[in-house]
């Protein structure tokens, strides 16, 4: 077994592109759930909206990458409006029903053959990210090393931009939540009726929160497709939403840095486990394959089994997250 290789992979995964994308999406979810108490079960839908805001603009309208950037936010905001309008006046679980349904519907529509001219169908869209990588000061094809980390030049560039965006958005959210506006959100999370009695328009605040978190989710989707250099409907699988939930709850909802911490922990564990299993000595590997059917495909599936088990156990025993405090925990309401 090549422990050096496993260690290198794991360390790189700690700060890698997935961490950035998932952490950013979790920041959005944190605005929804951590600060406002909205049960958004369709964050991946916002990511898809952001991705297709870029993809459709470049592919279908033939406009530039920079216009696409604008539409990323337009699509995210419009989706938030559509989902929020019918549900935010109702009890919390209706939002969850509609968001999970919408996120899966977006995926199915985007990959359908009718929408092929617009979204590229099942094949998706590529060749839109060139303007982004043209700006890169790093050689795209070269490997760069910094201490234990090793990345391709294009990933280094994506990571530099991604981490700047991630930290900036996190700080912005943290400032917003300290503002009167953010306090109103938390008041709504704690007791909507009380907030309303104090003259706060809870519906409007919840809508604003849904839009803000949705925009951040859209930005995460954009980063993801820029990193993959292709927009593929099937990458926006509903299970990603719940991976993001798991990340948020690992870190502790309603805390500023929890999405980043959660995302780093999650990806470290996953990459370590997967690489270790794949690197097992041949004999052990064969045995495991015959005893518990541990094929390559199933090693890939283990990640989701862990997500499911993790969510189940965290929600049951430690809903405030590993580092969270019970006071900041929206889950304990009602």
């Amino acid at each position: 077994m090549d422990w050096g290789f496993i260690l290198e992979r794991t360390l790189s995964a700690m700060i890698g592109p997935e961490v950035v994308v998932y952490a950013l999406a979790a920041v959005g979810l944190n605005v929804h759930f951590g600060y406002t108490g909205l049960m958004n079960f369709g964050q991946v839908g916002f990511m898809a909206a952001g991705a297709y805001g870029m993809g459709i603009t470049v592919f279908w309208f033939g406009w530039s990458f920079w216009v696409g950037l604008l539409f990323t936010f337009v699509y995210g905001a419009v989706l938030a409006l559509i989902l929020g309008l019918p549900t935010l006046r109702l009890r919390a679980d209706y939002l969850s029903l509609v968001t999970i349904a919408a996120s899966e519907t977006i995926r199915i529509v985007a990959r359908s053959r009718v929408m092929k001219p617009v979204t590229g169908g099942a094949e998706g869209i590529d060749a839109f990210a060139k303007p982004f990588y043209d700006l890169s000061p790093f050689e795209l094809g070269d490997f760069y090393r910094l201490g234990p980390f090793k990345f391709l030049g294009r990933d280094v560039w994506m990571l530099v931009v991604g981490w700047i965006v991630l930290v900036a958005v996190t700080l912005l959210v943290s400032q917003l939540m300290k503002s009167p506006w953010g306090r109103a959100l938390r008041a709504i999370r704690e007791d909507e009726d009380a907030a309303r009695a104090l003259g706060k328009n809870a519906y409007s605040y919840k809508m604003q929160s849904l839009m803000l978190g949705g925009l951040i989710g859209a930005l995460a989707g954009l980063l993801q497709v820029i990193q993959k250099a292709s927009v593929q409907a099937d990458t926006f699988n509903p299970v990603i939403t719940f991976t993001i939930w798991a990340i948020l709850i690992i870190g502790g909802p309603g805390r500023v840095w929890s999405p980043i911490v959660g995302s780093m922990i999650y990806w470290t564990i996953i990459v370590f486990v997967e690489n270790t299993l794949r690197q097992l000595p041949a004999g052990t590997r064969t045995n495991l394959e015959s005893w518990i059917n541990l094929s390559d495909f199933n090693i890939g599936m283990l990640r989701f089994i862990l997500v499911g088990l993790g969510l189940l156990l965290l929600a049951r025993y430690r809903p405030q997250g590993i580092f969270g405090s019970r006071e900041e925990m929206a889950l304990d309401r009602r």
Partner: protein
Amino acid sequence: MLRIRGSARGWRRATALTFLACPAAVGAALMLASPVSAAADGSDTTTSTVADGADAAGLGVVGTIEIVKADGSKSPIAGVVISVVGAGEATTAEDGSFRIPVPAPGDYEVELDVATLPDGVGLKAPDRNPLATTVSQDGDKRVIFPLIEGDTVVTTESSVSARRFFQLTLEGLKLGLYLAMAAIGLSLIFGTTGLVNFAHAELVSFGALMTYFFNFYGLAGVIGFLAPLPGPFGDGVNFIFATILGMLSGGVLGWAMNRWVFRPARHSGVSLLAQMLMTIGGSILLRYVFVYLFTGKFRTYRDYSAQRASTFLGLELTQKDMVAMSVSVVVLLVVGWVLLRTRTGRAMRAVSDNKDLAEASGIDVERVISQVWIFGAALAALSGAFFGFEQVKWDLGFRILLLVFAAVTLGGLGTAFGALVGALIVGVAINLSTLVIDSELKNMVALLVLVVALMVRPQGILGRRERIG
């Protein structure tokens, strides 16, 4: 308030029977791994994950275009153009074979260009062209275009649409009936515990998978490989028994989920929202355990898989669907009767209606909740067994979850009869929508129904205002 009377003996007997099957189901779940591993050897070489939908080199749609002559001999046809929407096209070779690579596993439409068929040869089922199909990550998908001598029959426009309307309504009713069985459980669990059970979809898949398992491996898989068992037990039981066993296992899973997961959670004061997250966690856990054991392949039951549709009053329906629909109607009638007339059913409705009042009237609420889980899960399993007619797949339930949600919301969360009404409406609406929109997009209608229902009448058709809060 409801008056509670009558006998609970029938229910007790059913519960006892379900308990008996408990170790059976656990054993079966464990055994599911062994037959699958044999099938998986060599075929599961792709390292891609389903979620990433990523690199799946070497996947394709394959087939052979050939015509079966009257004397039974086959002759392949070369030069026919087949296309996979979103992937590419191919022309059949001398031996009639073709292969079109596809980029990723998923749903595709395969179309045969009728103009390229030689004269005197036509499609047997023109309405199955383009053909919707699913490519799994396990390898090539074979499609069949049955051909007949004579030109492709194109019926005149008006009769087609009238016939199509009724055909779609019929299929909508079929979908609605199957959906209803899944929806009632979801609605009742919500009614009695206030919990939206996102893992209900997995109870549906579980029913299909267990039915498949019993259909192929029979009780031997349960009892163990101790001795070669004779006859119906040894290698696979008939689909009908398999369905019953599948339902029982479903009930056991429902009971276990309540007993070991949600009841302790309720008792230690875990909030409803956290419980909802627990159901999500459970849903993902179960779904990916299914794909782990079952692989991403889809399969068909051993019995009745290749049934032809028979025509009845100009409408086409396979015999198995006819039987399954009738069974569904009977089951739903029985459910209605149980809910309205038996002591257990009344207690269920009473708890749904007002938990505190029910408890004050001497109803053992925990017991009723447990019964609702068993009852709802067994119905979901039956619905899954019927949905499995098309294909048994690990995420079969998740694919219909949106429809179940739409049905339950439309009918009114928490009401059993609302779920029934909602399911029928959603089923018919979805199928009729294909008259105007592409069939690939038909499930979008469910989302539309869901959103419109929430905007116009959030409490649902049969629900009451104070629930929506």
